[in-house]
């Protein structure tokens, strides 16, 4: 703390407080109470979109990484092509392809339209979840490929020498060590994933970004909702970083 509070930092902190104070005092925040319930539900949607797509994406990414690191050629190649295509095209394009493309295709297919899933498929969020999951799987697939390859082969040989079945060795030795290696990268990727969730607002999912745009449309206030958005996203990014720091500190590791 003493290192942090050097004289110039105190001045900068004072300037920061003054800027925040000026924003709070002279900008127009009168819309805030009215939109509070919507803002809270928007934050909630952003949060679960991030967590759900990250979780589903990681499951896919483990498979993609494993296929590339240890799979036979007929599995490794499609996985590699998938990762290249996802990483080579913008997420917005993928999202619109899924939403508008599948959205225009499904109503033409009778058995989908008559199925019990149709009320869900008529909404926008499944396409948002699908696009975000596929995207994060492509990026994490590359990360996991590196992580799987980085586990020392002696560990796997030891497991085999102890007579461990392959699945157990994967579950107990290979996967935990790979994830441990990839954890800092995964933390960074989760922040990136959180930062790409506002794209779903373009397909009518009402996340926090879409709430802020709604405020601008209703009240013609431009800067205040955007500043609120920036603050909210920064807070969420900070929470993710803290969570991963805590997670990393829980895993014992030996540093020389």
């Amino acid at each position, binding site marked *: 703390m003493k290192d942090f509070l050097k004289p110039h930092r105190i001045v*900068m902190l004072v300037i920061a407080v003054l800027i925040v104070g000026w924003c709070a005092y002279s900008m127009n925040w009168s819309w805030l109470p009215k939109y509070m319930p919507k803002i809270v539900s928007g934050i909630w949607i952003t949060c679960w979109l991030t967590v759900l797509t990250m979780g589903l994406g990681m499951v896919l990414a483990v498979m993609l990484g494993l296929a590339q690191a240890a799979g036979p050629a007929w599995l490794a190649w499609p996985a590699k092509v998938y990762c290249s295509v996802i*990483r080579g095209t913008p*997420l*917005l394009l993928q999202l619109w392809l899924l939403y508008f*493309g599948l959205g225009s295709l499904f109503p*033409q297919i009778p058995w989908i339209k008559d199925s019990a899933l149709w009320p869900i498929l008529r909404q926008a969020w499944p396409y948002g979840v699908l696009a975000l999951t596929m995207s994060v799987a492509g990026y994490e697939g590359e990360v996991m490929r590196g992580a799987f390859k980085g586990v020392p082969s002696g560990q796997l040989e030891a497991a085999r020498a102890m007579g461990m079945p392959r699945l157990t060795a994967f579950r107990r030795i290979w996967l935990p060590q790979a994830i441990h290696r990839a954890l800092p990268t995964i933390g960074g990727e989760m922040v990136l994933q959180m930062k790409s969730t506002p794209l779903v607002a373009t397909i009518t999912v009402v996340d926090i970004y879409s709430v802020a745009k709604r405020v601008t449309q209703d009240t013609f206030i431009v800067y205040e909702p955007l500043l609120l*958005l920036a603050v909210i996203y920064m807070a969420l990014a900070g929470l993710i970083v803290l969570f991963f720091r805590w997670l990393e500190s829980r895993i014992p590791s030996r540093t020389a």
Partner: protein
Amino acid sequence: MLTLITSTGASSMLDLLAWSPPGWGATLVQGLLNTIVIAFGAYALGLLIGVFGAFGKLYGGPIVKDVLAVYTTLVRAVPELVLILILYFAVTDAVNEILKFYGYDPIQLSGVGAGIAVLGIVQGAYSTEVLRGAIQSVPAGQIEAGRAMGMPPTLLARRITLPLMMASAIPGLANLWLTVTKDTALLAVVGFIELTKATSLAAATTKAFFTFYMAAGVLYLILSLGSGLVFSRIEKWARRGQRNIGRGS
């Protein structure tokens, strides 16, 4: 997909992508050109900010270091879409305020200029971090030797630090180029007609969503794979001195 192809027919799919007006080929290519121009400009601006930012972060005074830390942290924590909107409005307002101050009429910023400025400022934060890491990878002895020979800082940067850090900076910079080509798609949300927006216009008019989004995807892929090749050649060139050391000639 199958029903779509059979219902519209493969030949009409090609008609849609044809160059002249019943087809949308020219629109897509124009969008692609806009994408490339903006990506190029933003990347160059980002590199410029990045070079100064990286040197500032490493050798600057305490205030410069802290201001740069705030800049890179803020920009990397807030979604690009939100930053683009904030900067777009802020840059437009600032330019118009200045014009008003000197007694000119307010103008509407051109999409290309605003896009380059906004994405460039975002890219600058990431470039700063990439270049800072690369500069740190230059062996300290090299820089010390340059200083001992009495080289002034700019000459030292030009002759020693920048050429030596190139090799380790290229992979990170290649990633940033791929990021900026994809981030241009976000300008579609502001209404600027680059490849993604052009595609969505074409798709919405003709209702051939798969055809156009797939075509745009292929264009983006060609762009990213092609620039991957270019960057691997640049990296080979930047590492040209190192190979000899590796071979132990």
